[in-house]
């Protein structure tokens, strides 16, 4: 197995990914960087790339980054596991969960 470089990193701030960028759609316009109330993101040092999630621990899931994005699908929510909802199918009684 090819060995990947292992770094001495502290535990990653959790939750680390309040949103997920789709690099195929995102053109790095940084609208989300601007509309975020609390500066969760910074622009990517590489122009045209999706922003960097710098302060995920300050994210309040306000939603402006996703809802104000000019390119639908470029950025989507990613609820922390413990915040994912449960629901029930009325016809079958099966309990389902946001497990995408």
């Amino acid at each position, binding site marked *: 197995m090819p060995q990947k470089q292992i770094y001495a990193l502290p535990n990653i701030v959790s939750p680390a990914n309040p949103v997920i960028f789709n690099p195929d759609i995102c053109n790095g316009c940084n609208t989300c960087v601007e509309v975020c109330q609390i500066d969760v993101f910074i622009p990517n040092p590489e122009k045209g790339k999706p922003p960097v999630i710098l302060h995920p621990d*300050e994210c309040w899931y306000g939603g402006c980054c996703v809802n104000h994005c000019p390119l639908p699908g470029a950025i989507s929510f990613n609820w922390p596991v413990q915040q994912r909802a449960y629901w029930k199918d*009325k016809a079958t009684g099966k309990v389902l969960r946001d497990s995408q």
Partner: protein
Amino acid sequence: MTKWNDLLEKNGKVPPWPYPIRYDEEHEIDTDILVIGGGIAGCWAAISAARNGVKVAMVEKADTIRSGSGGPGCDHWCVTPANPHSKVDPDDWAKRLVEHPVHAGQPPTEPLPLAYSNGIGTQIQCREDFDTLLELEQMGGKIRDVDDEYVGAEGRYDDTKFMFSPRMSPNHATEVTIRVWGTTFKPALKKECQRLGVKIYDRVMVTSLLTEGGVQGAKVVGATGFNDRNGEFMVFKSKAAVLATAGNSSLWFLNTELAGYNTFPNSRTKCGDGMSMAWKAGAELTLMEQTGMHMIGTGLKHTWYGGSGDASFENLQQVDAHGKKLPWPLQGWPDGGDMRPSPEGMQKIIQGIKDGTYALPFYGDFPAMPDIERRVTWELMLGEESTTKNITNSYEKAGFNPAKHLLMNFLLMEGNGPANWRTSGAGGLTVDWDLKSSLDGLYVAGGQMFAAGDHSYAASTGRYAGRKAAAYVKQTGESKISRDQVTLEKARIYAPIKRSDGVDWKELHAGIARAMQYFCSEYKTGLLLNMGLDALKEIEEVFVPRLYALDPHKLMRSIEDLCLLTHGQIVLNASLARQASSRPLNFFRIDYPEVDPPDWNKFITVKLENNKVKTGEMPLNYWGDMKTNYEARNKDYTGVYKGK
């Protein structure tokens, strides 16, 4: 690749700070009116002042386009008794709201024995809320069903296309709350500010109010601030200022590990900045001893609206695990949109859980709703309210279909949070009939005044404060700021960036919160409250000098902590001053156990004079006759804006 450590792994180095650092630069801005906070109240104050022909600068910590509690959206325009379909008189409705303060859902049927309300803000809202809404439509905000998406929904009037909510309108008895498309509001407000030439300073945190001669209690002549991306220092000189900052949701509690700041009902930007700077400038505050409980969103609980039953789930029947209907309000027309069962009703449900009458978990039965009402609740109300669009969108993406699925209600499964996880109450600045604070040159709008209301309250009081501040500016002279005051403030603000080790903002915040949990919580005594003041003083003297910030963003968070610290001190002083217990204030002193003794049914005020705490009092109806006083001061009110 999106996380900073991905960049580290890719490049072997930490990404550089993306903005230029300008700690040493200072800019001075001269304006007629300075609006502090660019949320709903701030934008409306700026627009209304600018329409009155004065020069306006507005300062906002984030980007005005989506900032503030109302930035993401809003689904209810709550208090519009002046709308054409209303069945109540605006002045009567104002009086009723003052006697029956609305906390969630409809006011109680009988007048409360005791209410700590704001008769001035409520009267303004009842008279001007509908005009404010119509002006919002002029700017591009969507306030009616112009696309005929919801024809046939209950509460929709086909002639005006206004859609009413059952909130506060049992069986259509009042028709005072209008359903709105609030995600359109904030961009429209920012655009109007820009069109009117309001100078907007986004990403700037205001840190202090400047007073004439630097004297506490003197006229407010400006403010200081800094850019939270590049660190640049800003000095604002103004003839009048409108304080339109927000409350504080995390004074008793910090936990970002479980779900980020999603663990609070509001974003981190709300941390008592306005109250803190006003207090230091010598402004008078009241109701600061009141606290609330973290109902949801405490990190150990579900996010706002993540489960059924929260405020926007109108007309949704709650059922038990087997589909049995619960004696829980529908939030519909029969119950006037009431959100929660009465305390007795809740006890019955809890007893029913224990004896097997009702099986957990509970659900909101969306499939049982008529299609049109389901669409109104899911698409319009949940789609437009604040942070809820991310819930409807992401749940749908994950397969949730309200026509087929019942959404779980987590409220009772989660249990109650500890009593020492509290929220700030309705404390804020006292105001007169011009929405002027106790300081000359300082006006107040929205959530920063005591006993404030919600989104439309912020809008209508912002609009009113802007108008009154503009009138004041036209008859006042030039301001002069004290350079000494600026120099001192600059040294205070930049202290954390001069250190690279010590105590970071999260550690300090949690330390302040712990002091509040220990010494100013469910049960209070003079001894505990004084220990609380000592604990905060110790934090101020020992740990604040160790506070460090590695970049302008962390500097903002650090300075916010200092606001939290001051806010805690105000709460403790106000709590010491009220020597009685009070149910409406959720305030219980073991050393003064009598609940709401008549002698103490009054506002207790606190302020600083020569840096000493001075307490005072005001009668509960200090505003006098609301209709008479409103009319006496608004003879020149021209209604809906007709300018270009």
